[in-house]
């Protein structure tokens, strides 16, 4: 998936890259990157007077953020000694991006090891942190590889309610189709009202067939039929939608297991991929989601959606560290083309508010 024909379409790929980054940046646009602002505040705010009792509020939204260029330049060269107070404040800034207290503490202590007691600028701090984060994320930034021998390569898409599973399937279907693969969508969310219609509309939009039954029918049976059909037709990729379910509902999780069990009756290797769709807005609960879904369905990779919003999905950093699951793609909008490969460096830099 993604960039198979990069050499041919290098220009458009470069544009894509830019597009994604631009969107990420735009996402941070109004609520102007809290991390940047926070780190600036920590370093520059503390330059003159080290806050003793009441530390500066690094993350408090401030209206007059658009400082003039001159002022920004002054800021950029302001140095501050990286002491314990500064480190603690930096840690807080990372927490505001949902990295979680533990990961934030570790990143900051890494930073402290190399830069403690040195005079640093805000940009230096951000560069150093971005590099560290990119280091954590690089191993997990892997595109979804379709096994051409599988016919079909079954992709089961799971997640809690409202993360964007159906939309992601529509977008994925388009990517695969454009790569010249034959695709079948299976409207396996037979629970949510009109979820089937939603996927059907996506199918029309991207010109891909959809196998569907009426609402309330058995999703495992439907998945089985979809696999049977895809095998008979020699389809390359079968994307199976599932109903959103909270991971702490044992009964609903058992349903997912059943879908997998039934698929394996036809193909012991199915599903070749199981994607967990995560909402970038989610906080620390993402840990519980990944853990439970992984236990129940052998998740093979993640897709992170809604990264075009003001949430920066920092929990991904902690997830990469803890689970090491590949992040295949990110969703950056509602359009059919708004799915992008996950780029560790870009993500890390945008997280830290640095230019591409």
């Amino acid at each position, binding site marked *: 998936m993604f960039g198979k024909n990069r050499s041919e379409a290098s220009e458009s790929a470069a544009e894509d890259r830019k597009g994604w980054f631009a969107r990420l940046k735009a*996402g941070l646009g*109004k*609520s102007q990157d*809290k991390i940047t602002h926070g780190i600036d505040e920590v370093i520059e705010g503390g330059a003159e007077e080290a806050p003793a009792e009441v530390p500066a*509020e*690094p*993350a*408090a*939204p401030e209206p007059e953020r658009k400082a003039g260029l001159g002022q920004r330049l002054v800021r950029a060269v302001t140095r501050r000694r990286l002491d314990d107070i500064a480190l603690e404040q930096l840690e*807080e800034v990372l*927490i*505001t*991006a*949902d990295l*979680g*207290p*533990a990961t934030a503490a570790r990143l900051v202590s890494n930073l402290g090891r190399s830069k403690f007691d040195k005079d640093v600028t805000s940009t230096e701090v951000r560069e150093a942190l971005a590099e560290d984060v990119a280091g954590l994320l690089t191993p997990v930034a892997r595109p979804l590889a379709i096994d051409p021998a599988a016919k079909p390569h079954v992709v089961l898409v799971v997640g*809690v*309610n*409202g*993360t*964007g599973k159906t*939309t992601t399937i529509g977008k994925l279907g388009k990517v695969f189709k454009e790569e010249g693969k034959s695709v079948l969508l299976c409207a396996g969310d037979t*629970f*949510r*009202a*009109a*979820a089937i*219609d*939603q996927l*059907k*509309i*996506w199918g029309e*939009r991207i010109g891909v067939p959809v196998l569907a039954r009426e*609402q309330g029918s058995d999703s495992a049976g439907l998945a089985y039929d979809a696999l049977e059909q895809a095998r008979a037709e020699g389809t390359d990729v079968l994307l199976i939608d599932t109903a959103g379910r*909270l*991971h*702490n*509902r*044992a*009964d609903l999780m058992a349903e997912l297991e059943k879908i997998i069990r039934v698929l394996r009756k036809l193909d012991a290797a199915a599903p070749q991929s199981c994607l967990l769709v995560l*909402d970038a*807005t*989610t*906080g*620390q*609960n*993402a*840990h*519980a989601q990944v853990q*439970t879904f992984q236990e129940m369905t052998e998740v093979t990779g993640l897709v992170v959606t*809604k990264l*075009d*919003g*003001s*949430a*920066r999905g*920092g*929990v991904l950093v902690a997830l990469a560290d803890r689970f090491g699951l590949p992040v295949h793609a990110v969703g950056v909008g*509602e359009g059919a083309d708004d799915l992008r490969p996950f780029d560790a460096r870009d993500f890390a830099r945008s997280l830290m508010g640095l230019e591409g």
Partner: protein
Amino acid sequence: MFESLSARLGSVFEGLTRRGALKESDVEAALREIRVALLEADVALPVVKDFVAAVKERAIGHEVLKSVTPGQMVVKVVNDHLVETLGAEAVEINLKARPPVPILMVGLQGSGKTTTSAKLGLWLKGKEKKKVLLASLDTRRPAAMEQLAVLGSQAEVASLPIVKGEPPVAIARRAMQMGALEGYDVVILDTAGRLAIDQELMAEVAEVRAAVEPAETLLVADAMTGQDAVTIATEFNEKVGITGIVLTRVDGDARGGAALSMRAVTGCPIKLMGVGEKLDALEAFHPERIAGRILGMGDVVGLVEKAKETIEQEEAEKLARKMAKGVFDLNDMADQLSKLRQMGGLGSLMGMLPGVGKMKKALAGANVDESILIRQEAIISSMTPKERAHPKLIQASRKRRIAAGSGTTVQDVNKLLKQHMEMSKMMKRMTKMGKKGLPMGMPGLPPGGLPPGMMPPGGGLK
């Protein structure tokens, strides 16, 4: 990874047995733990800071009550302040306007607006006896309008006929018109999900708001939301103006810190919470339940309610009477085991129990399968009625027979007996506490202590 706050504080105050008022130094150490607990619960940092500062002021000089440790005292102060901040008294949906009363639902994509719209329709129809009209202004997500229409018919609440290609403001006007002409009391306007930073869409919803002047503009927000809750709530409040918050997916195991963040930055009351996929799974907001979760003390009340669904009132009363006498035999335990399974298994309950941080870890390590419960029930069924009523009778030869009968080992039988002993001890303690008043760490518990039937099989989880 989430340890209960009381456990964390326990270690801070270890060895500190001094009585008297809480000193600044005691409180400082405790507040550091509280800070981390709040952050882990996804409370936004600026809100955490204000909150901790306020708690500090309240806690210093607070008298430590007898029979409570200083740590518990701090937790109590924190809990009280949290409940207060979340909104101690319930604020109802405002319907004081000329009918049809418009209610506007706004929020991010996937926060649960459409489902909540239908749930609210059913709620107002049932509880307030209102005639409700649902209208979807979501012209963006494929089949969103159909979704609301389907949900409406499931809830037997009318929905506005769909006209393709109509812009949101026009749909809103048409809904109000139909509402007025056909004598509806309330018109619920569901909108498309939008990012708080999408200027264009925010302007669009502001336009809808200006056109219909809703009595309520409810921000629908996912309980799993992270630090971004502050941005979301602030932006929606500034750009659209909200009057209340609906917290969804409270039936999940998120700690729900977003509730505190959003409430703190907007000052708007949290009015309702979504607690399940069914259309009647909507409840008035209970601050004490969310407070308990945020602090990692477990959603005891939620657990109680879940237990209530499963356990027949009469049965519970019978058991309560037995317990009051200090009797808890193996028959009761067998009952409990099967109830536990009916309630969705250990996994789903764990997140709701207070102080399960460590147990959860142990569970994950030992890879507990729920068949333990089934096996334990088998052991009990292999006993004679007399043995079940008088566990003390069970000596070596009886143990061997029971083990053989249930396909287990004598060790398993011993484990179960030990567990039963612990449970009955705990039951006695609970009954005593119930008489004296509430123990710390269980906010909002109904008087009388924990209802029977929700005691976890303490020892057997390893």
